[in-house]
């Protein structure tokens, strides 16, 4: 290769490379944040306050037309029993749509087990729902643009656009998505978008007699949820997945998956 050709091709390569790199970062997270600084929905769960009544599950199913008898639900409650020897026994019978009414733990095909009272070190309930992640894995895998994140941080599904391929159901690390038995599309918690956008409370949070569930605006420093995040020790589920969840838990144990 002649020196002239070498310099020429080097110049072309450098110019080309710099153009494509600058084309890649045309949207930065900071720009997105600045574009919509006033509203971001967040959810706070206090696991100490949850008594496992399951009224949240019932309210969610009624509010969002999820058939009560179908074995799918947008929100559910898990019971964790940690034994003194360190063993963890967990159950969530039918998503706790009828609450927890027995000491027996439903272990699916291995039947019901009873943990004797004197062996229990800790026992508590953990309500679960969609985390409305800041970087949602389920949205990234949607091949048709049917599921998306709104500017205020809610992750929704476009029912007319969803083709029902199920990628998002597989992609969610929290298992909150399911196939809607009537609509025949992927379905998930919407943070009760129709309620919160009118200034109402989410159906599950409204139904909770103990205030274990709260929804709020994380960008308003006077909001009770934002206050709790600033002043209390809160955790998120499966931080290691990098999805940046927006559902925060007070009193989260390492045993909770």
């Amino acid at each position, binding site marked *: 290769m002649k020196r002239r050709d070498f310099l020429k091709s080097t110049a072309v390569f450098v110019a080309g490379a710099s153009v494509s790199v600058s084309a890649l970062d045309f*949207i930065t997270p900071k720009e*997105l944040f600045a*574009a*919509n600084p006033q509203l971001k929905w967040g959810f706070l769960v206090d*696991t*100490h*306050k*949850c*008594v*496992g*009544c*399951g*009224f949240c599950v*019932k*309210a969610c199913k*009624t*509010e*969002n037309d999820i058939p009560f008898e179908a074995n799918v639900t947008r929100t559910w409650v898990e019971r964790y029993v940690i034994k003194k020897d360190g063993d963890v026994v967990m159950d969530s019978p039918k998503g706790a749509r*009828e*609450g*927890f*009414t*027995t*000491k027996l733990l439903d272990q699916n095909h291995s039947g019901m087990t009873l943990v004797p*009272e004197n062996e*229990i*070190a*800790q*026992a*508590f*309930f953990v309500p679960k729902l969609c985390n409305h992640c800041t970087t*949602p894995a389920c*949205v*990234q895998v949607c091949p048709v*643009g*049917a*599921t*998306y*994140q*709104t*500017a205020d941080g809610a992750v*929704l599904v*476009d*029912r*007319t*656009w969803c083709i029902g391929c199920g990628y998002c159901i597989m992609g969610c690390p929290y298992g909150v998505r399911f196939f809607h038995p009537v609509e025949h599309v992927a379905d998930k918690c*919407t943070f009760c*978008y*129709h*309620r919160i*956008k*009118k200034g*109402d*409370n989410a*159906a599950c949070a*409204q*139904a909770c*007699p*103990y205030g274990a569930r709260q929804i709020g605006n994380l960008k308003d420093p006077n909001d009770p949820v934002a206050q709790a995040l600033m002043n209390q020790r809160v955790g998120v589920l499966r931080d290691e997945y990098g999805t940046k969840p927006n559902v925060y838990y007070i*009193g989260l144990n390492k045993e909770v998956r």
Partner: protein
Amino acid sequence: MKNHVWRPLFVVIAIVIGILLFRAFYVPSDFGTHDQGYTFGYHRLSNEQEWKDYPAKYKGNDYCNECHDDKIEEVESAHHATIPCENCHGAAFDHPDDPEKLIIDRSRELCIRCHAKLTMPSSDRNDIPGIDPAQHNKGEECSECHNPHNPSLEDM
């Protein structure tokens, strides 16, 4: 150029034009990336409005209070004041127009959601007075003895 080059090229151009035409008609005009960028924001914008228009079924205690303020007052001083009306009385929907009457859930199963005694040492469930549903007046409706609006055992 020769015929055998032009002919398949025309076919390809026709297919591309066909796809573009189909896309122009089929994809809604508000379909795009919008605020959140390519990775998370690619969607049909009008769907946000469709979700906002979803009908609410639960109306909240304030709605009940518009007519049934006497009942709200009755329950307000009792332990059960924290339980929203609609948890037992059912979602209001468009009551009193549709449905005219709400069906009250008086079942044992509803009460034992909270009042079945469980051993939950790290949860507030432990502090709720509880019974063993298999032993305590089996088969009876709780409301035959206990007043749900004033569950105090002293006032029974």
